[in-house]
């Protein structure tokens, strides 16, 4: 039985840092709105990671609130700066890039992830309506999909579940889930615990995860 409250895990910033470490040098990465946006602040410049914004930018270097230009924003509406060698394009070309498999990795927020890698991240049933943005295209198009989210809801319900009960973003699309408590790999055979956050035990993660989790392999503490 889980304790009443999950253990204290990583801050949002540390989740973003851990996601940044997951990105391959030289890769092309799209960051979703919210927590994923923070990732841009944690990559090493020497790694030459190129960020794509689905509103039509390849090669923004990060959020730059000081100097707002209405025409130079990322997909979260935040002002950004450019790297040398950046390019602009329209939405059709941007989603050709995304849907066509030309983005190495996407980092999306999540509401629920299922044992087989289904993602739900765009529709809160209690609120309805929803905002989907580019999430469904990124989920089917990105070569690697990293979901960055809190391990449980504010009400203490696991977000990693056997089957999503929230409406899906896409089926079998998630490769890795990075939460405040753990790094979990998703494969056709299910979920595998790879890392735990500092101060968090394997048993903690199992207790707050709503799906079967393979903990038999080597599990290490997150390198931060």
């Amino acid at each position, binding site marked *: 039985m889980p304790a009443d409250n999950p253990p204290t895990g990583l801050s949002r910033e540390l989740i973003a840092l851990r996601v940044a470490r997951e990105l391959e040098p030289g890769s092309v990465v799209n960051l979703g709105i919210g927590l994923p946006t923070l990732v841009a602040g944690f990559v090493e410049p020497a790694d030459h990671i190129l960020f794509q914004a689905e509103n039509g930018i390849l090669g923004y270097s990060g959020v730059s609130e000081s100097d707002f230009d*209405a025409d130079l924003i990322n997909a979260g509406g935040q002002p950004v700066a450019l790297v040398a060698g950046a390019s602009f394009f329209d939405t059709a070309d941007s989603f050709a890039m995304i849907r066509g498999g030309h983005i190495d990795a996407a980092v999306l927020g999540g509401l629920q992830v299922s044992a087989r890698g289904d993602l739900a991240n765009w529709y809160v049933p209690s*609120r309805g309506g929803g905002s989907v943005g580019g999430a469904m295209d990124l989920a089917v198009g990105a070569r690697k999909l990293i979901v960055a989210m809190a391990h449980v809801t504010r009400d203490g319900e696991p977000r990693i579940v056997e089957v999503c009960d929230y409406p*899906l973003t896409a089926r079998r699309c998630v490769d890795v889930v990075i939460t405040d408590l753990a790094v979990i790999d998703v494969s056709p055979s299910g979920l595998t615990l790879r890392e735990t956050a500092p101060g968090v035990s394997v048993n903690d993660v199992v207790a707050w995860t709503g799906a079967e989790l393979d903990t038999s392999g080597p599990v290490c503490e997150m390198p931060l």
Partner: protein
Amino acid sequence: MIAEYFDTPDDAIADIADGATILVGGFVSAGTPSNLIRAVRRSGRRNLTAVANNIGLGDLLDELCEDRQLAKVIATFAIRASGTRSSRFEAQYRAGEVELELVPQGTLIERLRAGGAGLGGVLTRTGLGTMMAEGKQTMELDGEEWLLERPLRGDVALLKAWRADRLGNLQYRLAGRNFNPVMATAAELVIAEVEEIVEPGEIPPDQVGTPGIYVDRLVQCEPIPVRWEG
């Protein structure tokens, strides 16, 4: 073929009809025809369908809800996931006073492109196995499943560009292109607001983002600032 100038955005949109479907270019603050949207608000036209990336993120499109001018919205961002801030659109949506068709962004642009490019539809994997596929035709081809998405067009498109020439050629700046170039191809009447109007030839031929043949009307305005309300 030569674009017609208008002195005010109100003149440029004056003959939009009640019940029209309006494509609205822009992505939050970038490339957004804010003066034309305000003019539609002042026009009092009703029963409109708006096709736009976003509504209710601090954008001016949300102002069209003040007097219930919108009957339907086709968009990718419409209701915030967090309930900490609410838009006029959201309130009307919850009251059942406006219809929402939520469309994935890559599908929205392909539907508009198909509408402008004379294509009857495209096959995408985006949305398969989700609510977006409900009521839509799927096809299996060579063992892969695809969702058929149909074209989308408007009666009017409202665009924003940086500069235009007398022929209607549009030049965008930075990330101001987004939906504008495709929407320019997919409406019966295309109206663009620009910051500057120049002579033909001043926009280099390889920097024309929308060829002038797509643009019917031009109006020069100072953009009205818009910011995303998180």
